[in-house]
């Protein structure tokens, strides 16, 4: 299977009238860094949550590596949510042990190495850390997994510009050739330089799915500029 992620007739309606997501079909290839771009509330997080298995589509199916989302695909997917979801009372070391216990493809040495470079003490409890530091810890945990698909929801939102650069470098240098990284964000300018493909999504609908090179050639402008054009208010 060449497609790491495939949506077939996927839609998500909450009990409201307007569907949160209406992605009839989408495929994402292996070994690409994909930007999931769109205004607030456009359905980026909804799509990512469905691919991670914590949200169920109202109709249609999502396949990871050809397998429908379920306990088997959870091993293949490494998900970084927007929020902090780790137990506050645990120490970083405990959480690393947790990930080691449950994920065969988790690499604790990598995690400790990255923590060291960011001067984060593994014996600190999460509740003593600032929000930015907690986010860095979460990112390190997610990127220390050798997964097929990384789903990062706003990974650089709450951090300072220098940390953003570090995070982007971490993302690039830590994923393997065959893996795909899907990053959802609205900080397009920062992230543009690392993207291979982009997906534009608006009000739950797939507006565009193309490679960055194609857009730059055909439109003659940066992704950031093109985004502003497409999503002009």
């Amino acid at each position, binding site marked *: 299977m060449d497609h790491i992620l495939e949506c077939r007739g996927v839609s998500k309606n*909450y*009990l409201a009238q307007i569907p949160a997501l209406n992605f009839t079909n989408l495929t994402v290839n292996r070994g690409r860094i994909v930007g999931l771009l769109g205004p607030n509330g456009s359905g980026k997080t909804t799509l990512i*949550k469905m691919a*991670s*298995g*914590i*949200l*169920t589509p109202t109709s249609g199916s999502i396949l990871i590596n050809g397998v429908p989302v*379920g*306990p*088997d695909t*959870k*091993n293949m*997917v490494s*998900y970084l*949510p927007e*929020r*902090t*979801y*780790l*137990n506050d*009372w645990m120490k970083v070391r405990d959480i690393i042990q*947790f990930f080691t*216990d*449950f*994920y065969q493809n988790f690499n604790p040495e990598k995690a400790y190495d990255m923590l060291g470079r960011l001067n984060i003490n593994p014996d600190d409890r999460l509740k003593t850390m600032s929000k930015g530091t907690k986010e860095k810890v979460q990112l390190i945990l997610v990127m220390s997994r050798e997964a097929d698909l990384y789903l990062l929801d706003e990974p650089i939102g709450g951090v300072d510009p220098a940390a953003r650069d570090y995070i982007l470098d971490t993302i690039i240098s830590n994923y393997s050739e065959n893996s795909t990284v899907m990053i959802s964000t609205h900080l397009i300018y920062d992230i543009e330089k690392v993207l291979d493909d982009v997906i534009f999504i608006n009000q739950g609908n797939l507006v565009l799915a193309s490679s960055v090179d194609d857009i730059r050639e055909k439109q003659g402008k940066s992704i950031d500029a093109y985004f502003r054009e497409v999503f002009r208010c």
Partner: protein
Amino acid sequence: MLGKLMKYEFKATARLFIPMYLILLVLSSVNRVLLELSGYSTNFTLFPAGSTLQNIFEMLAGTTTMIYVLAIFAVLFLTFIIFVYRFYKNLLGDEGYLMMTLPVKPSQQLWAKLHTSLIWTICSALACCLSLVILLINADGVEWMVKNLPEMFRLMFQIDSVEKVHIIFYIIELVAVMVIGVYSGVMFYYACLAIGHRMSRKHKLLSAVGAYLIISFAMQVIGVILLIISGSVFDFSFMNLPAEWIFHIMMIASMLMGIAEFAVFFLITNNILGKHLNLE
């Protein structure tokens, strides 16, 4: 995977249970000390007997005993609350982002929590018993126990009559009914929370309470219907059986009902967690 889930479940819940047990044991110890100083078992009193200070002191001891009794009820009540709260917070709250993306089946998550709940229930019961022992034990009691208990145990397990066999089975059945009761009781609350989660986005807890009321009512109705059916279908000639057998039948019927309830609630919850999850 189940073992690992249980390991983390214990780690997380021990932080709540152990302090609770310690408080209970300390309370019962303090209570014991106060009672002894009030001349409870000996004639020794801290202050002169009959004096105002001693009367106040004895009031204090009495109040402490009241608090201790309340504490026992609190421990049993809180034990249950903690199980239900854990399920909600760990699987359906923010932590669900971590737990439900683990490569484990929802049924494994449920079993891990159920088994852990049983173990803590037993621990809570033991903690309460231990606190009672601290409060009541005295030299005479210990002497009596040391003299008589080994003999009693030996006599109990010496099978020399049919009655003895019945009694041993009663004990086994009773334990089974209690264990099944814990599993099905806890599973009922999990199912209500899961249904609440599924039915509503903004009012999950309210919907869960609604589910609780509706299901409780439904269980009553089903109970009555079953009673009526069994009344008309079975002729009660089995009531002519000797009393020992009737008791066994009642116990086994109770176990089967418990297992059936558990199965229904488990299937509902498992289905919702697996196919209808909507974490916010």
